[in-house]
């Protein structure tokens, strides 16, 4: 075996295959067992009632209106509140509404996990592009690690693409022509929120991201064989343009795939918020993969100083995420405008534990664990913080999708766990193979020497 070559350990490979098989079985089970008719839903609701002994249906049928009544909203504002039900107030019955949400649940569960792992690869690609664009001197030793992780982008983004295209009205109420016909606000947005343009945009994201990934990886490998810096210069230029492209498409991606699940609701900060989640998770995964490779005796040229820097980024972007989370929350909470505040009312009332637990996982724990400078150099400390951050940001994506699509009919059961297992398995498999393709030591990069001698 050549020096600095990684092969996915056979046990880990087996583990990832087991995860995928279990996950796939669970996902299929989730799709098969959704209620098909209103009678099924009535049965489920009756069972629930018998279990809990409370009139659950009456209780939650229009809990949002109850909440609004408590907050003192006018009847007119309530009538316009269509955000939380995919069919709006046009839903002919409560059971029909529940049926729709229960049928949506496996879609949402799959999408949450698919997007979570895709955004990790995408965020790593952005971090990688930033290293080139800023001509960073500390990070070139990690280029092959980052490239290994971004190899998941192609399969990951194709799956997400397929999901958002085929989810249809499960996710995006604005695709329901009957609903749009009686909704002036959605008619006004139809110039942007219409299905053909939606597909075109998604295709542009998919192509743009993957082309940059392909092109930069090609140049990066060619640079290792070259005796001038032409390939590096090409990568520099490509990275600058990719970053511009990414910041535009990331914003529209966040609006398209997440914000338009509640098409009446909007937040100007939303795109940045999604970006913060993506970025902090990605850097965390770079740190985890680096620690894994070091534990295999590879990456001898990566020192604890590099780990220290990655942990600093984890710490800083955890705080950045919290800053954006709070900025979005406080403005909406304070102004208390009915159209806006629905977003947080459902999350606080129906998802309270997750909603506030996420803050502890994403802010308090990383802050406490990573505050001390010395702790950032200790691998197992970084791993602890990484687990908190990744769990917390999975919950974050969960809370972006679930309340908007399945409302109070959510759970964390077979569909959710299976999707998580499947995509975790796929991620391990693809990234492991991606890392093993070439030597982990980048050669001939103009900053590689500075990076190897990095001592601060």
């Amino acid at each position, binding site marked *: 075996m050549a020096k600095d070559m990684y092969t996915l350990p056979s046990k880990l490979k087996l583990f990832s295959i087991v995860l995928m098989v279990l996950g796939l079985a669970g996902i299929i089970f989730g799709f098969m067992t959704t209620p098909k008719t209103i009678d099924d839903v009535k049965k489920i609701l009756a069972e629930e009632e018998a279990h809990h002994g409370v009139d659950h249906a009456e209780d939650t049928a229009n809990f949002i209106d109850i909440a609004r009544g408590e907050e003192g909203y006018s009847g007119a504002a309530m009538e316009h509140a269509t955000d939380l039900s995919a069919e709006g107030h046009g839903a002919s019955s409560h059971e029909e509404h529940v049926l729709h949400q229960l049928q949506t649940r496996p879609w949402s569960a799959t999408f949450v996990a698919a997007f979570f792992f895709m955004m990790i690869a995408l965020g790593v690609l952005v971090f990688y592009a930033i290293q080139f664009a800023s001509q960073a001197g500390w990070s070139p030793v990690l280029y092959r690690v980052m490239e290994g992780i971004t190899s998941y982008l192609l399969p990951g983004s194709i799956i997400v693409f397929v999901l958002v295209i085929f989810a249809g009205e499960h996710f995006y109420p604005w695709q329901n022509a009957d609903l749009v016909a009686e909704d002036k606000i959605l008619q006004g947005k139809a110039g942007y929120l219409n299905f053909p343009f939606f597909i075109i945009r998604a295709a542009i994201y998919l192509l743009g991201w993957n082309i940059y990934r392909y092109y930069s990886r090609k140049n990066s490998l060619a640079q290792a064989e070259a005796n001038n810096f032409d390939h590096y210069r090409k990568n520099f230029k490509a990275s600058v343009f990719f970053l511009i492209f990414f910041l535009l498409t990331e914003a529209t991606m966040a609006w398209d795939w997440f914000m338009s699940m509640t098409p009446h609701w909007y937040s100007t900060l939303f795109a940045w918020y999604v970006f913060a989640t993506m970025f902090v998770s990605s850097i965390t995964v770079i740190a985890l993969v680096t620690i894994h490779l070091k534990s295999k005796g590879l990456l001898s040229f990566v020192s604890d100083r590099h780990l220290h820097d990655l942990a600093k980024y984890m710490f800083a972007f955890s705080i950045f995420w919290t800053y954006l989370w*709070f900025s979005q929350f*406080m403005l909406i*909470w304070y*102004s*208390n405008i009915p159209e806006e505040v629905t977003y947080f009312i459902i999350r606080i009332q129906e998802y309270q534990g997750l909603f506030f637990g996420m803050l502890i996982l994403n802010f308090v724990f990383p802050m406490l664990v990573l505050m001390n*400078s010395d702790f950032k150099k200790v691998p197992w400390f970084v791993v602890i913080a990484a687990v908190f951050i990744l769990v917390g940001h999975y919950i974050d994506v969960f809370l972006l999708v679930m309340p908007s699509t399945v409302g109070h009919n959510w759970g964390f059961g077979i569909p959710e766990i299976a999707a998580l297992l499947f995509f975790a398995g796929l991620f391990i498999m693809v990234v492991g193979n991606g890392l093993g393709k070439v030597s982990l030591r980048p050669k001939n990069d103009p900053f590689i020497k500075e990076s190897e001698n990095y*001592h*601060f």
Partner: protein
Amino acid sequence: MAAKKIHAIYTDDDLLLQAVNQTRAAKYHISEIFTPFPVHGLDHALGLAPTRLAITSFLYGLCGLTVAVLMMNYMMIQDWPQNIGGKPSFTFYQNMPTFIPIMFELTVFFAGHLMVITFYMRSKLWPFRKAENPDPRTTDAHFLMEVDVDNHDVETLSKFLYDTGASEISLIENEQDH
């Protein structure tokens, strides 16, 4: 007997760091270094005890947070509760989201300013203090390393320092401590 010292001047921070490592490895004693800007990693290379400035900063931050909490509680809850945008202002708990920016600002304000002042005091940099650096060029682009001669041979030491890349070497015989 006057303490003899050698002043070696360097023109680059990386060179200085390397020279510090070499000098310490050769068991010479560096008594002081003057630089025009903070050199990253120099304290570590010199073997100085880790700074406790961060701990004081943390404590100042806690003070700022406490001040913010007490202040907002007195102003907005106890002394003069107002109805702003229909938001509850009768308990601290209910109104806390609006106070968080203030808590944050005062935490940063206290931690930042008091840390800088502490740093000045600890470095004995109070107003009207006379500058101590032996060569005015160390405020511009040069780095000066002060090495105790003790009972080493001046010639060997000078030669050694020259080999570490010093651009200028001068022998100083201090009559009095400054």
